[in-house]
């Protein structure tokens, strides 16, 4: 009886061991906080997209629903200061209707960004609201916020790991980014965003933007990933933003350079805006 009992005990122990061996890893993953994992992935994305400076020519194509295309060219220059605040200088070089219209964004840590736009037709520089960066950038499908890098900060967003999915034959993490407060939601202009982040290099391949009640507003798809010069970093050189109505804006980055000699501070001053 004892032997019998012992045999039972051994069998039960064996089953328990087998069960733990087979399912413990899954239990561990399931118990991992999806927000912690989401944040960890996004922090790796942030490390990947951060750079000391960025220079590029940008070809912008505005594509209507009927397929008509308008082309614009601009120069993009940005610089990250010692406080990890990135400053942006974007100037249109063509077509004539927008030539020399220039945007200057000075990021701040403790308050909203300073944003100015120079309008050559009236020869005036106008301040824009630093909390209105969700509005359309010069009639494109990109908002001012979209043209800046993702600032991964739990004070602004909750990043929730959703799962994994294969996209274009590559494994991706899926992360949902929720603004933490009503004010953040108002400033970002979205209810939430869903990001597809590559597992191999943590670059975002696709971002869906959702309005209230989960209604899809627009989708950003990035492609043409290549190494950038001597920087050792990879970047997507093409981005296509499509809104739900089918209107598209495409950005193609040419002559992209990262982490070269820092550009002069004068490019990030109000004086320089109006000098063209």
């Amino acid at each position: 009886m004892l032997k019998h009992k012992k045999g039972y005990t051994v069998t039960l122990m064996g089953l328990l061991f087998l069960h733990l061996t087979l399912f413990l890893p899954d239990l561990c993953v399931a118990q991992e906080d999806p927000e912690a994992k989401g944040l960890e992935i996004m922090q790796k994305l942030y490390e990947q997209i951060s750079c000391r400076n960025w220079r590029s020519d940008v070809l912008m194509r505005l594509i209507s629903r009927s397929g008509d295309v308008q082309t614009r060219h601009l120069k993009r220059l940005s610089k990250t200061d010692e406080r990890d605040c990135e400053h942006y200088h974007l100037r249109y070089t063509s077509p004539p209707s927008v030539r020399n219209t220039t945007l200057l964004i000075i990021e701040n840590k403790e308050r909203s960004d300073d944003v100015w736009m120079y309008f050559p037709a009236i020869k005036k520089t106008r301040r824009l609201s630093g909390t209105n960066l969700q509005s359309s950038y010069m009639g494109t499908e990109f908002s001012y916020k979209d043209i800046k890098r993702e600032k991964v900060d739990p004070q602004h967003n909750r990043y929730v790991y959703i799962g994994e999915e294969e996209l274009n034959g590559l494994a991706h993490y899926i992360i949902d980014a929720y603004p933490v407060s009503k004010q953040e939601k108002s400033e970002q202009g979205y209810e939430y965003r869903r990001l597809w982040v590559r597992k191999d290099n943590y670059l975002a391949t696709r971002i869906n933007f959702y309005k209230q009640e989960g209604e899809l507003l627009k989708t950003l798809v990035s492609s043409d990933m290549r190494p950038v010069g001597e920087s050792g970093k990879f970047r997507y050189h093409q981005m296509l933003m499509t809104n739900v109505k089918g209107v598209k804006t495409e950005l193609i980055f040419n002559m992209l350079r990262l982490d070269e000699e820092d550009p002069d501070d004068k490019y990030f001053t109000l004086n320089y805006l109006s000098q063209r």
Partner: protein
Amino acid sequence: MQGSNLIRVLRLATFVCVIISVTGCFLFADDDEFLALDDEGSRRVELHGKWRLSNFSYFQKNPNSEERNLIDNRLRINARFPIASHAAVASVEGLVRTWEPETKKNLDIRELYFDFRPDPQEYRVPYVSSLSLRAGYQIFSWGSGVLFNPTDNLSPQYSIDPFDTKKKGIPAAKLTLGFGLQSFECILIPTFFPTDLPYLNERFFIHRPKTVANTFLPALPVDTWTVRYKDIDSSQIPDHEIEESQFAFRYSAVLRGWDVALSYFNGRENIAVSALVPVTPYPATKDLDARVQYVHPRQQVYGLDILGYYKLLGIRFEGAFFDMEKVDQQVGNGDKDYVSCLWGIDYPFNDFYGTQDAQIFLEYVREFQRKSDNTILINRPYQNSLLVRLTHTYDYRLSGEFRYVYNFDTHGSHIHGEYGYQYTDYTRIEVGIDFFNGHRDTFFGAYDTNDRVYFMHTLQF
């Protein structure tokens, strides 16, 4: 005498600035690294232009003009010659206005200047992060107000149609010192140029006043004269003399997310105030032949300009104190000291009806003056007025704007609406309307017969 010496010194300084600018462009050449992003762009001469054809159709005949259709042809050529990090810029505009059968032509140098931008570190200028010296014909625009700028008094305008004006270039030297997001501008304008106003007996010419009371020659058996305007007397417009130099300073800074600017201008009011001068001694009959004398009083303008945002709400204030020179002519309020203030807010509406954007601007202008009479001053139409501007962007092609001005004192108003469609990268069409309302003796009411619709086609290259 001391003032005259000061002006001589300032004029000499302008001359020296021009010489330094021109020679500096060649002597201190340095590649512009940002421009050099585009391998072809750094030394390429840029040549651009804009041709605009407008057709204004008026609903009514006008006492000044029997014609109802005005065709306006404008061609502007802009050229930019980069010389290392410096540049020479030229912009010339030709205008042909046709009121059948009459045609008027105007050629205007808008900009023609050298921009000399030395590296302050090279010259060991302490604390200065950027330095620029611009000398030649140039245009100035100051102020954060959207529809009106009390602090902006430097550039005269081509204002033959007061509701379709553009600024004119004037010869000047501007030195700008930048300290990060702060800057200090010094401007010297060695001569005076007035704003071009509507010609006598043209559609937008204001006959003021229609009648003159006889309060000073009681011996004459006339209570009031009915005025017949014969011509415009421009003899009071100052000559291009050294004594007519004008100068200005402006300091601007960013304080906790607010743009703040302090400014000072010492010069002449470029939009004339008018005085009535009889052609002959006051007659005993009821009809008085008179000419309009344009007067440009000297003024000192002390300005303050503040703009910031509270979340999405834009808040602005622009105010100026006008210390006016007293003139001998009868110009009503035209030579009295006053304060002009503008308070404004704006608010955006993003992504309504899908992805459309709109923005509303509300501004209120108020003038403060000890004693005022009912003189119509064409340089100050907004003495107690609400200004509204609503912009609408459907997409990158279609956008529109609506403006409304209402003067609480005179109950005069102006409504403007326009929609434009950018149908290619280089071409845009626009349609618009203007409605004027008010009593004939008020600024906007005086234009009551000038309600119009217009069509505009612009080609840019």
